[in-house]
């Protein structure tokens, strides 16, 4: 297993990781600027997971939160969540679930479940369930209705994460499909991104449309629940 891991860490991988970290942070900030109800701060992590394997993705996630922690220390304790996002994205890609957009929805959903489960103990132990993020209002509401801390945090995660992570997976998939075949072939796992049917450009366009629809859907469902 160690040898297999080593094969994923080529020079291209080591050079891609810092770029992916910067993509995570820069895109996260663009999304804040656009005032959208998602974070989209792990696109780079998922991207590395797809084309460089699960362990490279996991490393990107963990380091990304550490480096973000340099100017936003609040993101530091969440590094295990980012670690598992990269790992699961890579495992999904190895299983062939980043080859067409319907499968990417499934991958995004799996990533979301992982993120919700991994973040729960951190949130409960470190913050008693109520963190600095906006979704804590849902947790607080559930706590007031008499639910236990663990189940309140976990259900909030299951409610909030899918929209964010499915969009993230879709955008990462679209980016991979947009890369030239020549550049893609230089990374350790180009076969993870080969499309099964149709051209990669049609997959790209569909993925972008699906991403926009998912965000819009999440927004309207949330408004309906609030109203």
């Amino acid at each position, binding site marked *: 297993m160690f040898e297999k891991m080593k094969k994923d*860490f080529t*020079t*291209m991988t*080591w*050079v*891609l*990781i*810092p*770029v992916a*970290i*910067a*993509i995570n*942070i*820069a*895109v996260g*900030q*663009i*999304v804040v*600027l*656009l*005032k*959208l109800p998602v974070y*989209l701060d792990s*696109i780079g992590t998922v991207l590395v997971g797809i084309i460089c394997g699960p362990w490279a993705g996991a*490393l990107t996630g963990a*380091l990304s939160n550490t*480096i973000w*922690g*340099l*100017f936003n*220390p*609040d993101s*530091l*304790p969440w590094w295990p969540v980012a670690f598992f996002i990269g790992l699961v994205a890579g495992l999904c890609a190895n299983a062939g679930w980043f080859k067409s957009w319907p499968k990417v929805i499934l991958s995004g959903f799996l990533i979301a479940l992982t993120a919700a489960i991994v973040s729960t103990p951190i949130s409960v132990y*470190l*913050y*008693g369930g*109520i*963190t*600095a993020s906006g979704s*804590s209002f849902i*947790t*607080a509401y559930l*706590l*007031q209705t*008499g639910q236990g801390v663990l189940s309140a945090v976990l259900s909030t995660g299951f409610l909030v994460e899918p929209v964010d992570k499915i969009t993230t997976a879709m*955008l990462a998939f679209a*980016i991979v499909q*947009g*890369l030239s075949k020549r*550049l893609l072939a*230089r990374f350790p796992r180009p076969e993870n991104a080969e499309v099964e049917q149709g051209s990669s450009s049609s997959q790209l366009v569909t993925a*972008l449309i699906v*991403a*926009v629809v998912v*965000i*819009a859907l999440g*927004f309207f469902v949330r408004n309906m629940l609030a109203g």
Partner: protein
Amino acid sequence: MRERLSYYIKRDSALHRLNPLTKIILTLGILLVSLISPGYWTAHALLIFAIVPLSFLGRIWREFFSSAIRLIIPAAGFIFLMQAFFQPLGETVIFKFWVLDVTQESLAFAFRISTRITVMISAFTLFLLTTHPSELMSDLTRRGLPGQFAYVIISSLQILPQMQSKARTIISAQRSRGLDTESTFLCRVGSIVPLVGPLVFGSLVEVEERAIAIEARGFTSTHVKTSLHEIADTKFDKTLRWVLLALVILSLVWKIWQL
């Protein structure tokens, strides 16, 4: 969107002269003790008797207070309010606000959690103010950390500001072409693509060139490289590291004792 990435301030002080590894262990030690120890006042005591005196020792107290306050007041304040109002703890109601009531217990809990956050942020700020990232990396590489890790961290720190300025350029360019980034929800969602696309593809294209460049400079070579900078590691550093480790273990024992 513009943030300063390196907090490091060059001064001559006892704290600056410590070995970088000692400083990172000091930071992690303070963090872990405040998280693990079951005592209610541990985090408060650490803040007053360890972190604040250290900032004076490092002669960076002015910068420390200004940046710590800028980071802490929003984070810890928000968490304090959320916890005080929403934690369904205790019976002794202090005051009621609409359907939410603040009890003595939830207030105590809120105070503890927000102090923990304060300790976390301020310990980390202290570390960043007194340690240069490349000094830390070269010390860790000398101790056996693979050079690739050092490359990833240092180059992320360099790429990030470039990427942020590129993002600003793209945003202004697309706005000047009439891209709507501020009106209705659907317009804002739609503008993700023209903003993120150029940024991501532009930076991914550079990856291959950079890989070839560092490959040509012996990036994957496994030979031991000599360093230009000597980083001091005194006897005091070594003792301090063991003391800190002992403190962390001690608080762990205390925690298990309490169970």
